[in-house]
């Protein structure tokens, strides 16, 4: 499949700002999807509201653009009604963690078969740079001009605790690892979450002395710590995130029984 068989060329160039990380995630997803040789006719892309939720509109497949935060809820219904389809959810940090936090946790708990790619840009980028639940401590935004006094959410650890089958976190600096992770998640059954820490030079970087996309990528490179190293250095994992650092790596890879196997709707079709 060529690049513009996968994307809708008539919509190009896309609306994302110069240097936005969403395009990088699209590239990695295309590469993983292409290597697996899957068919776009059998895949549905679901998204909520936000910058990253515009990605399904650029892909040459069926898309469900839903209300704010309810992407996982709509995707659960779609999977149970049409179990032969593959569901991919593109969502942002505000969409998945803040407004749709409850749907997210219960989606992980039920372990419904879908792949969630959460693009975490640390800010509400589309509405003008308000502090979101993942803005690191002491970082500035339009609503926290003296630095964020709160502590951020750790979406990947929540998914591990709630019972997702596969959880990984990468940044847009680690493109090859991200591609590999997306490939594993697409092949795996159950609820798979890939959190991608992405750059937002326009609204997050500009207010934190990182106005250029390459400066933000350098920041990811300097501040990302592998999960195994974070553990072996006997540093508390939570502390690492609070210091503005990013723990990257594969968080969990297990085979819990998923919801549709338990209630028996899987009989309609085989998954690839």
């Amino acid at each position, binding site marked *: 499949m060529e690049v513009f068989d996968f994307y809708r060329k008539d919509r190009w160039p896309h609306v994302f700002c110069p240097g936005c990380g969403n395009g990088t995630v699209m590239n990695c997803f295309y590469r993983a999807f292409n290597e697996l040789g899957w068919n776009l006719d059998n895949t549905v892309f679901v998204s909520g509201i936000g910058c990253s939720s515009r990605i399904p509109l650029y892909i040459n497949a069926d898309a469900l653009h839903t209300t704010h935060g309810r992407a996982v809820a709509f995707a659960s219904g779609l999977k149970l009604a049409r179990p032969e389809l593959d569901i991919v959810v593109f969502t942002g940090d505000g969409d998945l963690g803040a407004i749709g936090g409850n749907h997210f946790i219960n989606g992980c708990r039920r372990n419904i078969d879908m792949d969630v790619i959460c693009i975490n840009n640390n800010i509400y980028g589309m509405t003008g740079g308000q502090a979101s639940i993942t803005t690191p401590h002491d970082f500035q935004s339009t609503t926290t001009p003296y630095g964020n006094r709160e502590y951020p959410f750790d979406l990947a650890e929540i998914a591990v605790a709630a019972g997702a089958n596969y959880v990984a976190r990468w940044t*847009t600096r680690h493109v090859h690892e991200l591609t590999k992770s997306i490939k594993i998640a697409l092949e795996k059954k159950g609820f798979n979450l890939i959190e991608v820490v992405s750059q937002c030079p326009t609204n997050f970087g500009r207010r934190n002395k990182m106005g*250029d996309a*390459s400066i933000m990528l*350098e920041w990811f490179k300097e501040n990302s710590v592998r999960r195994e190293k974070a553990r072996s250095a006997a540093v508390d994992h939570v502390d690492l995130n609070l210091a503005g650092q990013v723990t990257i790596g594969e968080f969990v890879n297990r085979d819990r029984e998923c919801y549709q196997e338990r209630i028996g709707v899987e009989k309609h079709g085989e998954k690839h």
Partner: protein
Amino acid sequence: MKPVVDLKYCKGCNICIYMCPKKCYSKGVDISPRGYFAAVVSEPQNCYNHKREGKLICELCVLSCPDQAISWHPEGEETK
């Protein structure tokens, strides 16, 4: 194969200049038709994929370009 920057899509974010380990790219000096300073492939002979056929390696620039502006073309091919 050599990388080619498509001026129709490039938004001048310079991520390719940062990502390339062999310093193949440099900042643009001319304004592209869309009004950005698009990156230029100034030294394609440094690229890991120079004169390589079949499976390509590295590909950091193609994977990380947010605007899908970089693509691979054979060496002899004329591109503008």
